[in-house]
């Protein structure tokens, strides 16, 4: 149970982490509210950002949910997933480049922006080892089950992970956006914006590394 709790905690913490990272969009919520001169625009923007992030999580996690039916290859899948995440982290750490197509997305399409950013920066990928960890824990508890059962459970698990993660993200980013909009002012934007790129890349490598370690262990 401790490891399950730990993994769910990781889902929540990674959500908060993504939410607080300006690169995942909370300044856009501030900008929307200021541009439209009404507070409700902040919540609308957050909802669009959350929607895009949630769909990106589903898009990345669902294929893994399907793969978990291949019970015999559990270990290989988990190792493979961990290596992909580590690879993404290394790629970001080494190239430090932003995909140029992201700058062609108009400011009116926040949900699309959020979806593509979560994919391009590996935010969704970061959840894969955590998710697979939860599947494995599940397995131990449940023993041998019918394939359809496993699939249903693991799909529900994807929804749960994506929903909880996105909720934590919106809460973290939303609180910060609201605080900046309402009390702190735009000055905070420049003072508090740190270059998280390398830390972000290292986070991916760390999560991938833990996934690898638990798969091999």
């Amino acid at each position, binding site marked *: 149970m401790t490891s399950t709790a730990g993994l769910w905690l990781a889902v929540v913490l990674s959500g908060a982490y993504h939410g607080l990272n300006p690169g995942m969009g909370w300044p856009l919520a501030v900008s929307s509210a200021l*541009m439209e001169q009404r507070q409700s625009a902040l919540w609308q923007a957050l909802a669009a950002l959350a929607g895009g992030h949630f769909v990106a999580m589903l898009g990345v996690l669902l294929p893994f949910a399907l793969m978990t039916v291949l019970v015999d290859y559990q270990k290989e899948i988990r190792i493979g997933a961990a290596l992909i995440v580590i690879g993404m982290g290394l790629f970001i750490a080494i190239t430090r480049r932003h995909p*140029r197509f*992201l*700058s062609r*997305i108009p400011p009116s399409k926040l949900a699309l922006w959020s979806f593509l950013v979560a994919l391009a920066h590996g935010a969704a990928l970061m959840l894969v080892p955590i998710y697979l960890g939860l599947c494995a824990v599940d397995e131990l508890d449940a023993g041998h089950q019918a394939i359809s059962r496993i699939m249903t459970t693991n799909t529900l698990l994807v929804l749960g992970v994506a929903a909880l993660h996105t909720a934590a993200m919106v809460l973290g980013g939303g609180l910060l956006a609201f605080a900046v909009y309402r009390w702190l002012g*735009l000055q905070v934007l420049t003072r508090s914006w740190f270059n998280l790129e390398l830390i972000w890349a290292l986070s991916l490598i760390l999560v991938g590394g833990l996934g690898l370690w638990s798969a091999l262990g």
Partner: protein
Amino acid sequence: MNTRPDPTFYPSAKLAMEGPTETLAFTLMLSPDFSQPDGLAVVNVDPTSDDFGKIVHQVIMPEKGDEFHHFGWNACSSALSPLTGHAFLERRYLIIPGIRSSRIYIIDVKNPLEAKIHKIIEPEEVFAKTGYSRPHTIHCGPEGIYVSTLGGGGPDGTDGPPGIFIMDCESFEIIGRYEIERGVQDKHYDFWWNLPRDYMVSSEWGLPPQFENGIVAEDLLSNKYGHRIHFWNLRNRTNIQTIDLGENHQMALEIRPAHDPVKQYGFCGVVVDTTNLQGAIFTWWRNDDGTFEAKKTITIDPQPADPNDLPDLLKGFSAVPPLVTDIDLSLDDKYLYVSCWGTGEMHQYDVSDPMNPKLAGMVEIGGIVKKTKHPNGQNFGYGPQMVEISRDGKRVYWTNSLYSTWDDQFYPGEGGAAMVKADVGENGGLTLDPKFWVAFPDGYRSHQIRLEGGDCSTDSFCYPSV
């Protein structure tokens, strides 16, 4: 790359106004007869310094005949855009295009007193990668550094229309053309935008044969210079609307959108109305349905003159036209400065109501007929031209050269380089600072000015001034 945003990036124009006062200015120097290489002068503008008004460093280029005109930064406040996340760039390099040679210099000014050449992009690379020539205005935006050009391909720049190209903001590699659908746009000059609203506005001067060897009087009198402004969907890269200001409104040059992105209007200066020699300012605005309109909101009359006091080009008119060659808008969107290069006047308009500008201040200096001297007794050649405003709006700087061959037509004889400063009163008004006078090296003329840490025609802001 920094770990924190560059302190000279500001989320809003209001915060930029509250930033530290500039102590240095960067001014372009051009050799009008191409006998010397062009250069960048670093000018001390700190009144508390012993070097106030002096050139404290120069970067002289290795080539001749570039003809420096406009220039800009590798990164500005637009890097704080919440959409594109280039927040950790440094405002460190000046991008200086030669409009005659099409060569582009990247100057590293991290230590301004040791500014040096970082990279040179040869004209062949510009031609090959863009099909454009004669690069001009620089702005940093969502996809990198945007560079407007005045010429298309071919030796005289008329093979295809001019346009905008994009450069990588870190490697300074030319990426390629900006336009996907240019519509009727076939000439180019200036451009600027509203980043959160995702639109761009561009203007028209003329094609290279219409300016490189001097103004072509027949073309001007038959209204063949540019007189339209174009509106673009910025990220779609398509021309969504073109407004013809009327063919008599020759040379629609500087585009100055309101700095506060909540405001969806801006200004455009027109050099001369060929029906009456007036100079004009148009206010353009965006309607709620996304369409644009423009209306003439300022006219400046020509001044009667004795033909003997006029150059050949103007003798027949017995009047000196104001020639509105540059305009600049303060960061609070309150004052619009208008250079009247022909009559030798710098006008300050209160544009708090953009549809009803009011003349708030004026300085007379230089001029074809008046030839007003600086308060320190020095001759100011030509007229007030490239104008730049400090971020806090309290100081206005300007130089005097328009373009080598045009200077000689309107002001025969060498007028030399000048750069002056005027102070803005509490409630408007403009007074020349008698103590500020920059002595440039012999044989040079002066063009655009950039202020340390950004100024009123470099930075695009992504958040409203609240």
